[in-house]
């Protein structure tokens, strides 16, 4: 090792020396590293779902339904495209905001504010899932869309829609449960000694779920 630590070298070599040095590879606790690695792995899952969706959308033999028509709400006799989705997206992004505030207050040691901000985040997440349930019901009951077929065109529309939004919805549901548990444990003082990184780790997951939604929104509703 003597050779490696001496004298300035090229950037590349210095980077290797630095990164492989006698310390944690990343200057954060292991929980955060674990969450990051998991999120990268999860990114692969969602990316592959979306790529699979694009592929079957191209290979589908029937016409793809017009998304602006399918995802429209009738409010006061007016046909407003993407209204529900806009509200859902707004709610989810708002919840990311409250989550970020929770992380901030947690590091300030304000357990009371952290608890309530996390609960707010969870409630916003739950209302997102609730609206998704409403959207599914509307599509299934009113439009007659099923995973295996629909009256509007290509069967793959229903298949990919229910699969991908369902998988994302499961992530949000899991996140709501995760947030609630961590919030309660914060309030009970479980992390007083260990520190409040757990709030930030939970936040990482929540922001990820939010980010994934942006991609689903773009590829599914806007395309």
């Amino acid at each position, binding site marked *: 090792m003597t050779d490696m630590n001496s004298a300035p070298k090229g950037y590349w070599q210095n980077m290797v020396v630095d990164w492989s040095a006698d310390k944690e590879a990343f200057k954060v606790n*292991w*929980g955060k590293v674990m969450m990051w690695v998991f999120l990268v792995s999860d990114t*692969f899952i969602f990316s592959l779902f979306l790529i699979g969706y694009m592929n*079957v959308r191209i290979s589908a033999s029937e016409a793809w339904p017009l998304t602006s028509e399918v995802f429209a709400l009738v409010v006061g006799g007016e046909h407003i495209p993407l209204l529900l989705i806009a509200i859902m997206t707004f709610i989810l992004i708002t919840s990311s905001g409250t989550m970020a505030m929770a992380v901030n207050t947690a590091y300030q040691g304000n357990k009371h504010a952290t608890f309530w901000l996390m609960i707010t985040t969870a409630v916003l997440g739950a209302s997102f899932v609730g609206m998704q349930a409403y959207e599914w019901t509307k599509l299934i009951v009113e439009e007659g869309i099923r995973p*295996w077929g629909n009256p509007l065109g*290509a069967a793959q529309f229903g298949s990919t829609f229910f*699969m991908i939004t369902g998988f994302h919805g499961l992530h949000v549901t899991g996140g709501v449960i995760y947030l609630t548990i961590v919030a309660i444990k914060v309030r009970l003082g479980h992390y007083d000694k260990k520190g409040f990184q757990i709030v930030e780790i939970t936040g990482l997951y929540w922001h990820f779920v939010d980010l994934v939604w942006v991609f689903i929104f773009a590829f599914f509703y806007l395309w």
Partner: protein
Amino acid sequence: MTHIAIADQEPELHHPRTFIGKYIWSQDHKVIAIQYACTAIFVGLVALMLSVVMRLQLGFPDQFDFINPNMYLQFVTMHGMIMVIYLLTALLLGGFGNYLIPLMVGTRDMVFPYLNMLSFWFYFLSVLVLLASFFVPGGPTGAGWTLYPPQSILEGTPGSGMGIVMMLASLAIFIIAFTMGGLNYVSTILQARTRGMTLMRMPLTIWGIFTATILGLFAFPALLVSAIMMLFDSILGTSFFMPAIVSLGEATDYEGGSPILFQHLFWFFGHPEVYIVALPAFGMVSDVLSVHARKNIFGYRMMVWAIVIIGGLSFVVWAHHMYVSGMNPYFGFFFATTTLIIAVPTAIKVYNWVLTLWQGNIHLTVPMLFAIGFIFTFTHGGLSGLFLGNVVIDLPLSDTFFVVAHFHMVMGVSPIMVLFAAIYHWFPLVTGKQLNTRLGMIHFWGTFIGTYAIYLPMHYIGFLGVPRRYYALGDTSFIPDSAHALNANITIAVIIVALFQLIFIFNLFWTIKREPKSRINPWDAASLEWHTPDVPPHHGNWGRELPTVHRWAYDYSVPGVVKDFIPQHVPDSEVVYEPGYDRFTSGREST
């Protein structure tokens, strides 16, 4: 220098008191490793039996009434799936990964022991679901381990009803298990190494396991996604992978799906999977070769970079499994190029293994024999891979026994040779006893010569054009009688090799029951795992203080030093030199 978590957690480490807490719901990485290993070896034996039955049919068609065409296909499928995923992946990463990572990098346990425990139990559940599929109506799936749709879920393929559903469910559970374990391995290696254990001082075993785990975490999602989509195609009647198709004379309800999509997803997982199995094997064999040749590993840094580069490249070669699928031929050009590039880092590794042996003080112990055997089988398997990587040569050889021979040599026999080497090598650490050498020698020679008796002729009958996965060849004019005779020979060799494995199993039990305790660190290995206060290591691994690492893991036969190895935790000031030896002028360099 901030050393976190594990280092300071000793008082917090949860020591179980009851039998159940200690051995069933254990959170100790060593117990979990043994649980993983036993389960994997058990299903591996099931898969071995399946292959014997399969070979009986191929070698002596029409002789055995109890094998019908459906069963033959089911056995082929289950043999492949079990061997690749439930034996090799689980034993290399769940077994050896769990056991060796904390010991080799010097921690008390994985960073998240509870998750680690869950990982094993999910794996156990996936094995139960897999084995349960033998008992559902219609039996297990017979679609081949690649599970290609449309045939895997259409009537006519055995197990197209419940069988395939169970298979996909089991895979999904396995992936969950692997993810929980894998997150632990990666985080432990990155964040919890002990003082002095830099990344470039880690044994190559750890590098192999680390890179393979990353590959797994990024590749298994593709299998999960394709499994979910196929489950929906099968249960809900969606058409992700199913085009409009006529099955058994009737039009199905499917329309507009893409079977090629499945192949892309499957092989985006499937090719990295080859390296998920190979890279830990590469790492472990490097360590075994170095220890038993009493010489440092040749070109350590190149070995590390080769592992990392192979890992990276393995994500951009997947479609070389699909040259005959009807995809765009330009893809073939790209994937053939990347495939052949992988040969470069792989060849670096083979050269370095051979150069490690060069002028080494080679001890022909049982682990060493298996390790050297691996160099042979891997080189052979790798060279036939060059044939198959080229589109024009692959096209006629596709789906023949040449392919079967190739992948068995390169990712069946080779990792298993390393697994045996590793089991013989680390058994004294795990149990405190050395496996019986005479039985081990018999086991090695039977296995090594036997695999050649099986797979060399298989290349030849592959060149003749004998297709794989056929229940019986019948009277086919292009297959000469000699090929049938060879087939019978192969079957006899398989039976003999299978019997030799019983010697190994017997050896395990014999050694635990009858052999005396061996000396601590019987191979005089320098790496950290052999230098725990107790052998076998106790819960928590280290004494009151974690070890401090002062050197790499390969200080063997250092010139001028009295002992022929310097353990990793020995500081320079404690190394004893021969009298009169001036270490500053003779230019010794240690990393």
